[in-house]
């Protein structure tokens, strides 16, 4: 998107202005995190499942090319057509080409974070194709001209009233209506009409199976199936890291996915596509878009193990209090902040700094990605590469000078304490970022070092 990027810290400051709203956002996501906890604790083998999932994904990373070749061959034998896209632009062109070949200018789409990453809707719309998002949350944000703010809960940042107003304007519901049942019914009728009249459907891919050439799509609403089974042409877009070796591996991943995402034992629908139905065309687009580069970065390649459950977002104290849009990336939150700099270091240099490094994300990750360690490592790469704002860089350099010279450190400490006591306005002002939303501490009379030396003598 060509929109100007607002840095995470600035965007979240705006988000934080409405305090009751931020509290609500925080509590709503924390509730989802708690559901995940309850559900995971019902399985005694939970930790072992995570270990196995992580192990399978490690195998996938180290056999990626062989698995993709096997998948391609099987899928072709099943009558599915396979396309490869090096980047977002090529992916979008392939979709457009398939639609044009079939004289189609209207398509339904179920959730696919990859097409968000590729900004496909925007591209197709510019080329005269209408794309209707069919997941309720995605449809809501689409009507608002916004990207999803969460990968599993796309409209989690909105309240009933916002949606009521939106549907009143676009779907003709009663003014002021906020009942979720009523609003969902209106969307059901609106979208059923689209499902019944569109000849093309695009879905994402949750898992692609090398052994069978099939792929699995998980939804709670059934929108992927409604679209795909009624359309003449089904296009599935997948990042190549979605591959897993065998069908039985799905047992491990499907047991982890929904429990980690929303606390459900499994999503309502786990649809296994293998062959197109009679008379239907089925296409799979295998997309790179920076993934081979990430595979080559030893410190960051684990991020390709992600199964997109969103657990790291729901648990993240920064995400919960800053909202998904402040991350200016298709995938927000902790995992998105590892993936984004791979796509563009300059544009996304702020994101790995949007973390407290508390480690909660790594603790809930179903495939054991070392998320907070990778965020910490990105910071070092980005500072070394000169991708962070000068003020931050100068601050970090100054800190390094002070901390590496004990005498200078002692002198600075004394100076700091005396300044805070005698002329507090020097630090207690808007120029000091540490003063924001924070009371400065009362300076102690002596440093710990001085206290220690004194006590040793006595």
């Amino acid at each position, binding site marked *: 998107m060509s929109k100007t990027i607002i840095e995470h810290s600035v965007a979240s400051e705006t988000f934080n202005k409405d305090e009751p709203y931020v509290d609500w956002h925080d509590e*709503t996501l924390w509730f989802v995190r708690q559901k995940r906890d309850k559900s995971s604790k019902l399985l005694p*083998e939970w930790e*072992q499942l995570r*270990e*196995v999932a992580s*192990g*399978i994904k*490690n*195998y996938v*990373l*180290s*056999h*990626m*090319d062989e698995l*993709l070749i096997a998948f391609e061959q099987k899928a072709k034998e099943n009558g599915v057509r396979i396309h*490869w896209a*090096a980047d977002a632009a090529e992916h979008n062109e392939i979709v457009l080409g398939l639609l044009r070949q079939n004289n189609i200018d209207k398509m339904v789409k179920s959730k696919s974070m990859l097409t968000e990453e590729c900004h496909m809707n925007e591209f197709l719309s510019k080329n005269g194709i209408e794309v209707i998002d*069919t997941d*309720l949350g995605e449809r809501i944000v689409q009507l608002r001209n916004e990207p999803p703010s969460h990968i599993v*809960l*796309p409209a989690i940042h909105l309240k*009933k009233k916002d949606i009521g107003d939106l549907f009143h304007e676009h779907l003709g519901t009663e003014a002021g209506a906020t009942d*979720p*049942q009523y609003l*969902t*019914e209106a*969307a*059901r009728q609106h*979208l*059923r009409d689209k*499902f019944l009249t569109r000849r093309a459907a695009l879905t994402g891919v949750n898992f692609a199976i090398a052994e*069978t050439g099939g792929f699995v799509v998980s939804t*709670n*609403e*059934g929108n992927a*199936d*409604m679209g795909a*089974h*009624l359309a003449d042409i089904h296009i599935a877009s997948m990042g*190549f890291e979605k591959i897993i070796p065998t*069908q*039985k591996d*799905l*047992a491990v991943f*499907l047991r982890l996915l929904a429990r980690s995402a*929303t606390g459900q*034992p*499994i999503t*309502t*629908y*786990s*649809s296994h*596509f*293998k*062959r197109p*139905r009679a008379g239907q065309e089925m296409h799979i687009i*295998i997309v790179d878009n920076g993934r*081979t*580069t990430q595979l080559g970065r*030893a410190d960051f390649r684990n991020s390709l193990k992600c199964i997109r459950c969103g657990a790291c977002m729901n648990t993240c104290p920064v995400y919960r209090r800053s909202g998904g849009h402040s991350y200016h990336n298709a995938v927000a939150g902790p995992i998105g902040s590892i993936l984004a700099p791979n796509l563009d270091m300059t544009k996304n240099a702020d994101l790995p700094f949007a973390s407290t490094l508390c480690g909660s994300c790594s603790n809930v990750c179903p495939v054991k990605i070392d998320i907070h360690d990778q965020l910490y490592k990105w910071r070092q790469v980005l500072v070394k590469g000169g991708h962070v704002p000068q003020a931050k860089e100068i601050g970090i350099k100054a800190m390094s000078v002070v901390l590496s010279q004990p005498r200078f450190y002692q002198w600075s400490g004394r100076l700091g304490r005396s300044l805070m006591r005698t002329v507090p306005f020097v630090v207690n002002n808007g120029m000091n970022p540490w003063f924001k939303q924070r009371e400065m501490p009362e300076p102690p009379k002596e440093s710990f070092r001085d206290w220690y030396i004194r006590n040793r003598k006595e």
Partner: protein
Amino acid sequence: MTSRDRILQQIKLNKPAETLLPQTTRFDSLYENTEDKFIETLTAIYTEVIVVKDLAELVRKAGELYASVVNRATTIPALADWADFSLNDPDPHALELIEIAILQAEFGVAENGAVWISDTHLPHRALPFITQNLAFVIPRNAIVNNMHDAYERLHDTTGWGCFISGPSKTADIEQSLVIGAHGARSLVIFLLEDA
């Protein structure tokens, strides 16, 4: 070079050193009673479970439950007289009028209340999604413990299949759970004793 070859070549250059697959990839979830667990899980996700002794009782129950409903479809031969909607039309769009479909499913999974349906028993893939209300019939002895057991039964899959667990739902409006998003508004599962 094509994008395919370039991507595969880059992967080959960039992938990490070989690791092996984990040795154990399956776990036993043994419930005191698999059927009880299955019913408990389904009840929690707004699904009614009805145990019927035989096909005659199934026909009777179906008649009672959907007495006033028109546009009834089924894939179960014993219910042919109960149904008034033919599934012979090859165009799946014709199915949009169906109010209730009672379909054969292959087996259920205790840990998550899912049932497996596939091309094998379905004339239309769209059927379980497009119908307003849905019911499945599975043999009472076809309930497995968990997903590992489920995939052991599925070694030979067909062109398409799906685990369905409860009616269609969404919580996209302020996290309030609403049943009946795009797919079936209600789900009933008949457990058939003498299959």
